[in-house]
């Protein structure tokens, strides 16, 4: 507790009511800072150590996503949480790709959940702050020589893997799976670095699968490549799947290349410093898993992690 009591959390909202509530809710738990605009928040971040930032999305002058992107530029270690009453898909996708946010919390919120979420973020922030940032050369060197980086594509369209292979070039080895079972088979046998997935494969949502993968294989990085999605499932994907990027179909070569390469780099970073995976911990789904088939697959994932351990 002595550790976390010194953690500092910054709350940003243009509504003073929210800030007053936060002051009361987190009183005595962390060192709290408050700002009622993005520019004020940025100033605080620059001047004082901040571990976690919780921001509203809709604010005059600077939106939450804009703020979080700027904050990430100032200090990458600050964990970023969006707390907002309503957000359109564009800002959610922006918060994932530009803000690399940890959680997306809807107003009105549940006090306990918010406390827990901030606590997780504080833990992750403390751990990552203790790790020296890796220079790019180290990452390059850490790459297994002679091995092409493995990428798995989960999509109903069997041709998607080939398209992505074309975009990425021979440096990467792209394989495809058109069912979740086939995907799990590949994940079990191969050392996959990045999973590129549609939001649904064979009309089964991939969120819980990605969440479980993240739990049991934390260094795996996932990218969503989707034709269409809604705000709700995008929020689920970030909160429960910790997706790293979200890109839209049809594929734009350069956009996809940049997104996937940064995902691969993220994977290398996580492999090098496993403690960092805390930054990408997923939240347990509140919704019960309805699909029996998915349940079976999730059991297999649990299983293969333990097998990996024993074989190691």
């Amino acid at each position: 507790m002595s550790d976390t009591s010194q953690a500092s959390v910054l709350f940003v909202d243009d509504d003073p009511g929210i800030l007053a509530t936060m002051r009361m809710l987190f009183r005595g738990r962390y060192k709290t800072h408050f700002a009622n605009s993005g520019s004020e928040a940025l100033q605080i971040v620059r001047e004082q150590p901040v571990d976690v930032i919780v921001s509203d999305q809709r604010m005059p002058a600077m939106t939450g996503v804009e703020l979080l992107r700027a904050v990430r530029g100032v200090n990458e270690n600050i964990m970023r949480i969006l707390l907002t009453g309503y957000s359109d898909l564009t800002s959610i996708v922006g918060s994932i790709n530009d803000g690399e946010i940890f959680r997306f919390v809807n107003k009105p919120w549940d006090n306990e959940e918010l406390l827990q979420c901030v606590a997780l973020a504080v833990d992750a922030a403390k751990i990552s702050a203790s790790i020296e940032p890796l220079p790019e050369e180290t990452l390059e060197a850490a790459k297994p020589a002679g091995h092409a980086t493995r990428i798995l594509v989960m999509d109903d369209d069997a041709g998607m893997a080939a398209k992505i292979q074309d975009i990425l070039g021979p440096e990467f080895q792209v394989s495809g799976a058109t069912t979740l079972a086939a995907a799990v088979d590949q994940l079990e046998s191969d050392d996959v670095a990045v999973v590129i997935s549609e939001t649904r494969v064979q009309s089964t949502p991939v969120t819980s699968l990605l969440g479980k993968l993240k739990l049991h294989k934390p260094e795996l990085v996932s990218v969503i490549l989707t034709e269409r999605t809604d705000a709700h499932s995008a929020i689920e994907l970030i909160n429960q799947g910790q997706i790293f990027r979200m890109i839209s179909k049809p594929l734009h070569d350069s956009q996809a290349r940049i997104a996937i390469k940064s995902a691969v780099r993220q994977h290398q970073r996580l492999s090098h410093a496993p403690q960092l995976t805390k930054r990408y911990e997923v939240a347990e789904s509140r919704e019960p898993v309805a699909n029996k088939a998915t349940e079976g697959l999730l059991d297999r994932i649990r299983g293969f992690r333990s097998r990996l351990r024993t074989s190691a």
Partner: protein
Amino acid sequence: MPGRAHYLALLLIKGACGRTPYSWGRETGGEMRLRMLFIGAIAGTAIAILLFLVRGTQTVDIDLHMERLGLLQQIGNLDDRLDRAVVLETTSALVASRKTRTELTAEVGDKLDALEEGRLAFRGLSPGVDAALDQFQEKIGDKFGLAWDFESQTSRGMERMIRSVDSVPFYIGKLEKLSDDQALHQILRSLQYAITTYAISPRPSDIVTGAVEQRSKELEEIEGNFGTEFQDASKRLRGAVNDVIVDKTDLVNLLNDFLTIPTVTSLQGVEEAYNDYHESRVAVANQYRIWLAAYTAILLLMLALLGLRLAKSFRDLDRANETLEEQVKERTADLSQALKNLKESQAQLIQSEKMASLGQMVAGVAHEINTPLGYARSNSSIIRGAIRDIRGVCEAQKQAIELLGSPDATDQQIAEALENAARVEDQIQSLELADELDNLLNHSEFGLTHIGELVQSLKDFSRVDRTRTDLFDLNQGVESTLKLATNHLKKGIEVVKKLDRLPEIECSPSQINQVLLNLVTNAAQAIGDKPDGRITIHTNALNNGVGIRVIDNGSGMTPEVLEQIFDPFFTTKDVGGGTGLGLSISYKIIQDHHGRITAKSTPGVGSEFIIWLPSKQPESEDGMEPIATEALAAATA
């Protein structure tokens, strides 16, 4: 005949085309022209052949033929009459008969000229006719030549003969005086009679001639019985008779020569030659007639084929018409279905535009509501926790106070209780906490009031109304619209309201609010991230109604864009940014209210939308299209 030919030609043209009218239209212009040319050539040839054949049958002119025959007959008659005139002339030297002959000769000359040239000319008809004509002309020439000789010769012979004949009665009278012999007188009378008869006969028969010679011989036989005077007179008489006979014989020979010239035969030769010619022509005409008949039969056959073909075409046409009607029915059904679908999808589009603008509004409203709702709810649970803490303080203090008042309590117990109460209070800081809670409650109250206002605005905005007869203060509409549009206006856009006192107007408030929201939303979007964005809303009473102006200092529009802004589906926003129906629906709503909406804009400076609404709606208009109001009501209920 030409009429029939024309008819046939027409049929030929039709036949040669050989197509149903359907197939005509599918040809190109060039093909069509070629085809028409071809058809024209065939028709022309057919008509030419027909005319040629018809002309061939018409070479024999019966009237002309009869006239020609008549001419030949006239010539024959004239010849005959000429002969008779000549004969008559030989017997009587009458001037009248000569005159007749001259006239006849002239007439014959005319007719002969007619044979050579003119309408009835025989010359040149055929070589046979020409030869016969030449021969005839030659003969008739001879005859005329003879006639002229004859005239000169006979006039002398005739005079001599007449003198001789005239001398006969003189000698007979002398002889009768010289003798009373009855037999002699008988002979003399017979002789006189015989010589007169002989003289006046154009060509005396042998009997007449014999009678004269007999009487002359009888006189010779008996003259010896009489005296010399008698004998002398008798010899003179016989000499005169001989002269008469000699002259007469000469005349008769001349006449015979004249009459025996074979004009009649050669005329007959002409006629025969002409008849031969005529026959040949008739034969040719008959040949043509046969050909014409054959040709006509062929044409009729073609006509029959064309008729069949035409009938078939008509049958096909009828069948096509039947299927056409069915097709038309089908197509009509398809079209009406398509129209229905179109109307439905149009209604759906309008609906979805309403939902889209509503969605934007709901997004803002949801955020506006969720924020105070979030902290009010959170505050409740914080306050609940705080109350639990305060209750702990209260209980500790209550316990200490009870112990203080209790006679059984030891000092030690009281001291512990007081110490505990102080510790708990120290932990909680209940008075400070109460202040904080007060503060939270103030915020909660403020937030709940804000929620209440928003809900009230929603209710105002979406006033469920189906008629335009509601009386509505437009300023109220501006206020509630601005409250709902706050989220669009948040990014530091200044809103200036210049609202005059307005008369209440008859309108559908929810629809007018929708228009206002649309204009304010557009204005906010036009301003975008531009600093010092300002939206000015003017309202004023104007011309028996109210005027509203929504002015922004945003990006403005080019004249081209300005022209199209009220068109359906026209949008300058990115795909997904808007349906492009907002302004067109606004336009329709204002039109439905018998108002006017116009726009002015300068690129880079800003835009101004101007609305005028009448204070009263025409009475005949009852009810309005309920879609907008229903959608709003459903979405905000």
